[in-house]
């Protein structure tokens, strides 16, 4: 592995008032690796993801993603970095309320390069939403909105996908659909970093990184305990190359 997808060194994000949402984290994620970020609510998962996508900056330490030192980027350069490299999936979907599903996907194309409606419709088809393309977010169910969000995240062919509790607001059926999408993305060789509470989703990852009080810990307890095949911290080697998960 000459290049890792993510390289965090002594990364700390402290909020005014003294909360260290991320506290001295060292983490290396290989290209193509599927990592689950687990830990109880408030343990710093969202904060860590935002440090990886450049929407937030650490108060200390170094953040390298896809070989780019994010600390060197200003707000606009970070935006450029995101549109070229990162697909973002949010727990609350964050769709633009006055744009239809396909327009929300086209939005990401617009800021990336060029709008191509055919391609956007195709992306929706791939998440089984072809028939919902011209609906507004308010006319879609939570599961459908999440899939629009995923289609938008994938439209520019990102190298790394950062998802924050992607199944957190979904029922079982929709969660299953989303899981299948992640499995496909993994097979396609993309790097996945997925923060989740959901032990079932966590179990599918090649590696689980457990957070507690902003620090990486060995055991994902209490609520992540049964989910952990193995919890590893900084510099974890990429030893479980092949995941033996097919649709289950």
């Amino acid at each position, binding site marked *: 592995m000459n290049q890792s997808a993510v390289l965090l060194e002594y990364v700390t994000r402290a909020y005014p008032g003294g909360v260290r949402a991320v506290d001295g984290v060292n983490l290396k994620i290989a290209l193509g690796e599927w990592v689950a970020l687990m830990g109880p609510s408030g343990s710093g998962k*969202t*904060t860590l993801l*935002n440090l990886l*996508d450049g*929407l*937030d900056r650490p108060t200390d330490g170094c953040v390298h993603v896809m070989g780019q030192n994010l600390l060197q980027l200003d*707000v*606009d350069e970070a*935006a*450029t970095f*995101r*549109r*070229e490299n990162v697909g*973002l999936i*949010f727990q*609350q979907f*964050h769709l*633009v*309320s*006055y*744009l239809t599903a396909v*327009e929300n996907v*086209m*939005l*990401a*194309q*617009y*800021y*990336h390069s060029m*709008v191509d409606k055919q391609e956007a419709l195709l992306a929706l088809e791939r998440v089984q939403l072809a028939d919902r393309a011209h609906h*507004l977010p308010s006319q879609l169910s939570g599961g459908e909105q999440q899939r629009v969000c995923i289609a*938008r995240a994938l439209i520019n062919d990102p190298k790394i996908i950062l998802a924050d509790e992607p199944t957190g607001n979904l029922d079982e059926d929709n969660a299953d659909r989303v899981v299948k999408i992640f499995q496909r993305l993994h097979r396609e060789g993309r790097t996945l970093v997925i923060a989740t509470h959901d032990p079932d989703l966590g179990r599918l990852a090649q590696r689980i990184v457990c957070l507690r009080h902003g620090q990486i810990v060995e055991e994902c307890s209490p609520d992540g305990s049964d989910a952990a095949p193995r919890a590893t911290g900084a510099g974890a080697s990429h030893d479980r190359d092949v995941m033996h998960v097919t649709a289950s």
Partner: protein
Amino acid sequence: MFFRMLIESFVRRRSRKLLAVAAVWIGLSLVIGLLALGLDVGDKLNREMRSFGANIQLQPAEAAVDVRVGGYELVAPGRTVYLDEADLPRLKQIFWRNNILAFAPRLTTQARLAGRSVPLVGTWFNHHVLLEDADPFVTGAAEVFPYWQARGAWPMNPESCLVGAALAQELDLGPGDRVELTTDQRSTSVRIVGVLTSGKDEDEAIVAPLSVVQRLAGLPGKVAEVQIAALTTPENKLAERYGRDPQSLTPAEYERWVCTPYPGSVAADIQNAVPGSSARVVRRVAETQGAVLGRIDGLMLLLGIFVLIASTLSIMGVLSSAVLERRGEVALLQAVGAHRADVLRLFLTEAVAIGLAGGVLAALTGQVLGGWLLRVIFDSASEPHGVLLILAPLLGLLIAVAASVPPVWRTVHQQAARLLRGV
């Protein structure tokens, strides 16, 4: 995609945008209405206050020192100088011609009537001043002295005249009576058509059309003075300084003085136009008008500023909260790769559209509002003001941009991660 977003944002969030446009519209309507009223109010008041009488008096230059005995100018041919009636149309050809509202010449002599000597005043009634390239200007004593009241009719031809109320009582004269007026030169018979109450010396005189008096006095085409009602701007420091010492003004100040219809500048303009004349401002009238107008203008200005501030604040409140509501959207756009400038451009364009729409509406309704106020207060119609048609959209645009840009600016600069987590 940019325009698609704009259009969808307006079409699919219609009620929000309408609310924003309405905020600009209503707020600015008040401002524009007040401004429209303010622009007209001076003019209207000025015209109203013409009931005080003429505010500029034109006399022969050499007679500027009054020669009055017992309240009447002495007409002594050969010694007194006169103005030419033929020069008077020039009053409507000067730079300030549109500010000349009315004027009436005056020629006075003594005539014998029923064995006594009575003052005979000649002036214009419903006189058509012929102008080279405009319709005739109709003016006369009734226009210059709105306080003149004639019981009966106004003299419309050289055979008719008015008799002053006091004289009428004394000699038991009234409308319909025929009188014989005699001077050293000649005599003529005229019919009394009305009894005049002016509250001044005309009450004891016979007031006849100018041509009658000119003939009787043997002064054809001559007038002794002209009373002028002019629309003027209250005197200010600049006008006062000019009054004290014209040399103390810098060229730029002089330019400004010339280009403002102060009583002094209008009088100077008139004096230059009529050969051998001397125009003087009738201070009492001009000053009363000036003082009242100055106060009204100050009041309107204060009210205007107050309403502008109040409206601006409430418009900004509505617009900036509409933007703040969309902070999540700003953060999302940045998350999918928009630069700060992209986001600003989007919101700026929306603000411009809202500001212009609201401003254009306000330009129309504001004028209607101003016109209505004017009708209620002065019972007179107003004309639309071109300035306001431009000013209102401009103000709307400025306020909308000023309200929208700072919140977007602050949002794009810091809080994306926090906003997306929905805190």
